[in-house]
């Protein structure tokens, strides 16, 4: 862990994105410390007001402080995106391990199902899930989570397939170790680096998916602020009150950018092929 950090620290780009993400984590944990106002409070005085020292990001249609909403939005969006990806990582890894290690008919069935998920526009898939179960934060997490399951399943399966034939897995099998325990103790630790990278980059895409759903009117119900919801709902005002949509959009962009750069950095470091 420390070794990874030290290697990341060699490149200022990684340092900057790490610091940014640290701030994001702080905001996620204590949004109240950063937000000067109540994010739900409607204040007619601030109605569509330009950014000022009083309202850093301006005021929105209901006179709410855009900055405060963005801070709480960071919290909500990060929780949604990371729990969604945590779910897909969990399910996807399980399916991928089973599929890759057992292979044969099980592999075929699981991968066919995963393929069919892939062969379908993810936005419409999420739309169906939310439409079926109603739009609240928990369902949104599951909807986005499900969309990303195949990515993890495929990635882990690939790794598991190649590890299956490795010497130590063969040895474990010869020693009579059970399949489940081989999967968990021999294979899983070896796919962890791939998992970390996939996790980081997909949290960023999940943030964008949340935004698209907000744009289509299927995000978290109001008045809860999420970054995606703010951008999605605010787009109509891009010409007339750009601050309502530009600032939350920039916050998303910064977070996603940092996650992507960090993901790339981790890939560089963790990928044994490039590291000679």
């Amino acid at each position, binding site marked *: 862990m420390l070794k990874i950090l030290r290697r990341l620290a060699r490149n200022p780009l990684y340092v900057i994105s790490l610091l940014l993400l640290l701030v994001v984590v702080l905001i996620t944990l204590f949004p109240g410390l950063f937000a000067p106002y109540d994010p*739900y409070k*409607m204040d*007619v005085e601030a*109605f*569509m007001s330009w950014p000022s020292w009083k309202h850093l990001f301006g005021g929105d*249609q*209901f*006179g709410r402080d855009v900055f405060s909403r963005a801070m709480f939005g960071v919290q909500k969006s990060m929780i949604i995106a990371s729990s969604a990806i945590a779910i897909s990582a969990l399910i996807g890894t399980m399916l991928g391990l089973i599929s890759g290690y057992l292979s044969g008919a099980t592999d075929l069935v699981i991968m066919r199902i995963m393929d069919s998920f892939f062969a379908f526009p993810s936005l419409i898939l999420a*739309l169906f899930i*939310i*439409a079926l179960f*109603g*739009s609240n934060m928990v369902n949104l997490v599951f909807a986005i989570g499900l969309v990303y399951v195949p990515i993890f399943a495929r990635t882990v399966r690939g790794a598991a397939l190649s590890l299956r034939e490795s010497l130590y897995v063969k040895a474990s099998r010869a020693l009579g170790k059970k399949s489940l325990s081989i999967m968990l103790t021999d294979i899983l630790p070896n796919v962890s680096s791939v998992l970390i990278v996939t996790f980081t980059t997909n949290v960023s895409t999940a943030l964008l998916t949340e935004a698209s759903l907000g744009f*289509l*009117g*299927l*995000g978290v*119900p*109001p*008045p809860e602020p999420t970054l995606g919801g703010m951008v999605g709902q605010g*787009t*109509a*005002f*891009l*010409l*007339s*009150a750009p601050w309502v949509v530009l600032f939350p959009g920039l916050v998303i962009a910064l977070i996603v950018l940092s996650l992507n750069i960090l993901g790339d950095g981790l890939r560089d470091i963790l990928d044994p092929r490039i590291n000679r």
Partner: protein
Amino acid sequence: MKRFFQILVLALLAVTLLAGSPGKLVMAIETEPVGLDPTLVTAFASHRVLENVYDGLLRYDESMNLVPNLAESFEVVDPYTILFKLRDGVKFHSGDPLTSEDVIFTFERLMNPDTKAPAATYYKEVSSIKVVDGNKIEFKLTIPMAASLLPNFAGVNSSILSKKFVESGANLQLSANGTGPFELADYVAGNYITLKRNTEYFIEGLPYLDEIKMMIMPEEVTRVSALRNGDVDLARINEPLSLNQLPTDRFKIHRNAVLSYYLLGINTTRGPLSNPKVRNALNYAINREMIVKLVAFDEGAVTGPLNPELEFWAMKPSQFSEYTYNPAKARELLTEAGYPNGFEFEIVASQRYSFDKVAQVIQAQLAEVGVRAKINLVEWGIFISKWRESDFDSFISLNSGSIDPDIQFNRTFHTGGSTNVFLYSNPEVDALLDRGRSEADINERQKIYNQLQKILVTESPIIFLYSANTLFATNNSVEGFRSLANESLIFLRETSKK
């Protein structure tokens, strides 16, 4: 490189040639028609196209008075009889002349249960339609409601069809043959609709435009940018704030008060809201002016049960004390009703037409008196399904109003009324509605409807909110454009372009 410049020059040439061709109006609309059969369509987006392709026996003039259209004149002979005299020399776009047979055919088709036409319910009291003196058509009714039936003849759903065309097996959902000022020239779904001038339109000299191209652009930013950029001449504006971006020296704004109104519809059989006193408390707790400001940017007006635009019928919102924001009174009523600490309920809303925004403001306002509203944001299809099954505590919606109070009130508040999803039932209201419908004396009718409006406010199965202006913007080359209080665009026929 030389080739590149050739293409560039060609491109610039093409652009200059296309820009601003006179006689061709390009407009940006937000939704596209769903089907083109005038008898069947319900979508407003379909109406907007078809009203320029088809004609009804009557139409509205600018001040929303009924005037003859395909009928040269009309007469309410007695409360049971309406007589239309058909205009001579009108031709369908196919070239066939309009005859009284076409009129009879149209209404028989409309009233046939197999057609499943939305307007059939309004004509269900028609007992016979027949031709008299060759070019007159007589409608006989079973109850004395001739006056309140009349507005229906100006509706798109009552457009006159060509018997020959329909019987030839044409699919009216996909093709059109009307008598209107424009012919449907081209419809590329998801892209645009082109209307071409009907050179044989029965009003000499109209329409002025040779061609109208309606481009379907769902996003507000896109429509406004296209207008600013000159790609379109006329655009529908959904967010009033966009008007700031249209400098008055280059653009004209057309705002129009409309009859449709926003409402908080309540399921009168569920939980605390089944108590009229509680519903009335909500009346006091909601600051309607604030909703108009925050959601409609003041492009709208507070409305009571009837739209203030209907000057003869409507009582002014200021005449109801319930419409004055008074949270203290709301608390008092809640305490009296046994909810001193408020209660929790659901507001179903979808993102369409800013329903979610209205819900947010109401949620914040009700929180001030301790009532906790939970917004249930749903996809449109689910919204409709909930509406139809009365599966809600309350919902935000937009109802179309009507010129005659009977049309609007009967379906909405009569026990078992076709859009009474509020499950509201009050014998007193039912009796008044029945009397209002068949009362011939207009002053008597006014009294009846005044009484109804008062009851509807105190009982509040619906909390009436406001009516938003319809906004269109044109560039300076467009002249004579107007829209009507029912959001109709029939005046495109008198629109021209410099």
